[in-house]
């Protein structure tokens, strides 16, 4: 058969195999429970109730026990083999590349466990790249063809090669084992990705300080639109996404809400504002905080210039003040004129009183008045 004749049966076979193959198993999901204090003891043996729960990965058959106290995680791994067993932590969807890998084996009385990092399909000890081995405790046992490894490791080591795990966040994991080889280099027997949720301390108060910045872009002229752009960053400098930010315009009667927008993946949220008049405008944006981060606020003052072709605010204001003053002055003058007439009436009355024969009351009761009764 020529290669061309081979191609068609192979293609058919591939399609048929793909068709009849069982669908890929859904990725498992494990939880790292919060317990304080942690009851688990790193002794290479997992007693019932030592951990709050476990997760059995259906692909590899590895059973995971995960618990943390807010500072350190305690992990138990039980593999269906006697060779090495490993777990790697990283962002959601992580495989080996970029994962913080803890890998080890039990050989007789010796337990080997190493803090490593993944690059492509390889892994290296942190110590080879300027990092440190951050394992706090480690222990392992082999029994019944199964290997049990336990270790305690900081959630945040500060090592650039390690992944910091935050409470309440989701991460990715990879678990793998080798059925017989007590080394760190033989290809795995089975490996699978697992998603991980780090349970939050239900009583924890936020302590972290976010950075919130407010800037503007666009025209700063009366009648123009300006975009108010806020950026929210975590204390590690990483953007905080999906966080609601509320924008306000500060006014003499209090803050006027302009809108609430969620930050995007870059930690950015923006609203538009139209300057209805020239002058100084003070905006502010508020982040109400979450379980990790404290509330934050940022201010921005923008001076909108008068629109072209219009009289300056000062000129208009002065003209209005003059008109108002003139009208009020006119009314006051008219009132004054009426009061002056009253004074004239009084003066004339005084003169009539002094002059004999003026101001006497007539006997017939006609409207002439002025004299007191005798």
């Amino acid at each position, binding site marked *: 058969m020529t290669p061309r004749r081979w191609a068609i049966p192979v293609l058919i076979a591939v399609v048929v195999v793909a068709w009849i193959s069982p669908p890929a198993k859904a990725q498992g999901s494990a939880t790292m429970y919060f317990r304080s204090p942690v009851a688990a003891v790193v002794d290479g043996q997992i007693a019932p109730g030592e951990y709050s729960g476990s997760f059995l990965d259906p692909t590899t058959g590895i059973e995971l026990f995960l618990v943390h106290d807010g500072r350190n995680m305690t992990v138990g791994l039980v593999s269906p083999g006697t060779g090495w067993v490993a777990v790697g932590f990283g962002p959601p969807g992580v495989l080996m590349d970029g994962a913080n890998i803890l890998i080890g084996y039990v050989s007789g009385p010796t337990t080997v466990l190493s803090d490593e990092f993944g690059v492509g399909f390889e892994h290296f000890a942190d110590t080879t790249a300027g990092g440190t081995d951050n394992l706090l405790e480690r222990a392992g046992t082999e029994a019944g063809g199964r290997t049990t490894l336990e270790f305690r490791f900081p959630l945040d080591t500060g090592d650039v090669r390690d992944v910091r795990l935050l409470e309440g966040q989701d991460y990715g994991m990879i678990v793998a084992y080798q059925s017989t080889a007590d080394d760190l280099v033989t290809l795995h027997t089975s490996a699978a990705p697992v998603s991980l949720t780090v349970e939050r301390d239900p009583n924890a108060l936020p302590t972290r300080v976010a950075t919130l910045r407010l800037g503007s872009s666009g025209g700063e002229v009366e009648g123009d639109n300006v975009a108010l752009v806020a950026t929210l960053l975590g204390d590690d400098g990483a953007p905080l996404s999906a966080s609601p930010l509320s924008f306000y315009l500060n006014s003499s009667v209090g803050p006027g*809400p302009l809108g609430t927008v969620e930050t995007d993946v870059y930690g950015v949220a923006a609203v538009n504002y139209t300057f209805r008049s020239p002058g100084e405008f003070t905006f502010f944006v508020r982040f109400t905080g979450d379980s990790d981060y404290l509330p934050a606020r940022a201010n921005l003052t923008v001076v909108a210039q008068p629109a072209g072709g219009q009289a300056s605010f000062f000129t208009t*204001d002065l003209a*209005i*003040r003059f008109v*108002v003053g003139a009208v*009020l002055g006119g*009314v*006051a003058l*008219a*009132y004054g*004129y*009426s*009061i002056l*007439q*009253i004074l*004239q*009436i*009084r003066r*004339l*009355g*005084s003169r*009539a*009183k002094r002059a004999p024969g*003026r*101001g006497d*009351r007539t*006997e*017939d*009761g*006609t*409207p*002439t*008045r*002025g*004299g*007191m*009764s*005798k």
Partner: protein
Amino acid sequence: MGKILVTRLEKRLMLPLVRFGPRFWIFTAALLAVIAWGAYAYSVQLREGLAVTGMRDRVSWGLYVSTFVFFIGISHAGTLVSAILRVTHAEWRKPITRLAEAITAFALIVGATMVIIDLGRPDRLQHVLLYGRIESPILWDFISISFYLAGSLLYLYLPLIPDLGTLRDKMPRRARIRRWLYSRLAARWGDTPEQRAHLDRAIAVMAVLIIPVAVSVHTVVSWIFGMTLRVGWQSTIFGPYFVVGAIFSGIATIIIVMAAVRWLFHLEKQILPVHFRNLGLMLLALDIALMYFTLSEYLTASYMGASRDASWLSLLASGPYAPMFWGMVFGGFLAPALILGITRARMVRWTVIAAVLANVGMWFERYLIVVPSMAAPQMPTEVATYWPTWVEWSILAAAVAGFTLLLVIFSKLFPVVSIWEVQEHVSALPKTVPATQEAIE
């Protein structure tokens, strides 16, 4: 002791000033009791703060501001009606102008007091002058009301001068304090032609000037609402709408007070059915104009169907304010129009009933302008609730009692019908009854 000669008309109009029956004392005591209770309620508010009212952050204007707008409206009664009739030389006006002018001054005093009561910190009233900005309608309001009050008092005083001269000369000698008071206030009136010329000049100036001042007052009051970005308030017709409503409620108040005075002081020969008829017809005309403005205001908002307008209108038409809204439409606007239209204001009793309905309806209208717009949410949130507390109701009752008491005191100090103007009017009539002279001690 010599006798003082008075005409029958003078005697008729001066008698209420010297007669104090038990009915007067009981009524005055009742008014004072209501005012005292209101003062106690205000002392509670001063001590505890505005938290004792139903007002909160969402509905920060309630009964007080509604009543302020209502009384400022009533204040148009007088001066405006009196001035317009004076400028147009409507001779029939003469027996009613004094009452109208007094109503104006007292309604302004009570209305302005309501604003001060509405302040959580009344001691900061001075800040309006010290730190007020001329761009703010609040300051415009303060200025226009101050000018209107000064002008109204002046306009009330000017036509009083000749009567004060009469009272100074013809009050019984035993009323020494009052004679002293009249003597001080009479500006040495001797009814000389020169004095008359000065008086006519002053009245003419004030009559012309007070009309734009009065119009400006309620226009500016309307702008406090109309220039605010809030559903139900932002409207271009609020200026004329408020002015028409103000004159409407003002005339209604004149009719009510006129009827009370006529009945209490037996002034059936001075305040005639024709006065009720003329004012009733004016009330009818203004009622029709007010209904037109109301229809225009609400129809425009409902036709456009903006979501905020729709939710505000639903509050009025079918929400918690519906009884008051439909009460205003049917009881305050339509019913007076029907009564006055059918009777053509020929019957005093029905004209008074129409006036009472109109005033109640106008108070509802003021409340409905202020409160539902504040209760309607500015943000996507629930409708705010507001109901006045006993403190607010007590102060409202005290305000009405205070207004009434001022009128009662005025009617016991000064003739409620202008003696000299009516005398002039009677003298000018072809079939004048001779001015019979009588003597009083």
